[in-house]
């Protein structure tokens, strides 16, 4: 099973889902022109790989998620939550989310706390300089 890769642009995030090592990395800006079709690619990919992914997880593998977002708009926040929800359907609570935020960016920290609350999964918050 190949990885899911969305290369970053000025307005869209980098999304890399390494299915061999169970690592998802999301970083950069997210305010795509068509937010629905941008994130839909991930959902379609996940749906078509769900079965094989579940086999490799074998009820044990943990997903490591690295969020290094600079900014995401309101519609992207909905899509990011949906991404994490879809992954929690596959991995269950075996998800370790690292939420990076720049020192002083209290709104980004709060956004992470709200995702964590909505997903009922604890996040690790990492302040960067």
């Amino acid at each position, binding site marked *: 099973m190949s990885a899911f890769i969305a290369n970053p642009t000025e*307005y869209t995030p980098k999304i890399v889902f390494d299915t061999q090592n169970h690592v998802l990395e999301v970083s950069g800006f997210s305010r795509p022109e068509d937010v629905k079709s941008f994130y839909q690619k991930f959902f379609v990919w996940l749906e078509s790989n769900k079965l094989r992914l579940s086999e490799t997880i074998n009820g044990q593998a943990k997903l490591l998620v690295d969020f290094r977002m600079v900014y995401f708009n*309101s*519609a992207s926040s*909905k899509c990011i939550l949906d991404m994490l929800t879809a992954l929690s359907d596959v991995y269950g609570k075996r998800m370790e989310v690292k939420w990076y935020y*720049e020192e*002083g960016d209290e*709104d980004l920290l709060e956004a992470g706390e*709200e995702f964590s*609350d909505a997903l009922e999964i604890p996040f690790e918050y990492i302040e960067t300089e």
Partner: protein
Amino acid sequence: MAKETLASLRTTECVDYPVVNGVLSELWQRLGSAEMPLAIVKRVYSVATECLENIQKYADCDISTPVVFCIDWDGDYVYIRAVNALAKSKVPKLEYSIDLVNSLGPIELKKLFKHKIQTRQISELGGAGLGFIIMARKVEGGIDYCIREQESGMYIFDCKMKIIVSSTHEE
């Protein structure tokens, strides 16, 4: 300090994605060189994005009503203003959405955001119904707006917001 303009747009053309990108790119650069805390930079950028995306998705073109979008700051506050034409059919929903977020305090806004992000679907226009909630959470004193009818039959939506920069000026 004297008022400094961080972003400015005035056009009678319809605002599309490249126009939004142009304004936001310039704003991001200017915010980067303005001496304000990172939290405020991100807050201003976020409110500006939601505002411009609303104009791009929902405003109606009207030759007699130019779209106006500007952001100024004076060291203490960042002032955001957005003006655009709107068809009558869009007025009730817009009024309802803004009046609702303006009537809520920070805790209720947080709860509403959580509820909507978990229950709403992305619309055909690419919205999630979260923009005004996000704006209301980031600005000081709510979203100040008025809607006026034009002779042309169109309506003008005029909205003003401000973001506090210096915590020593909290009201």
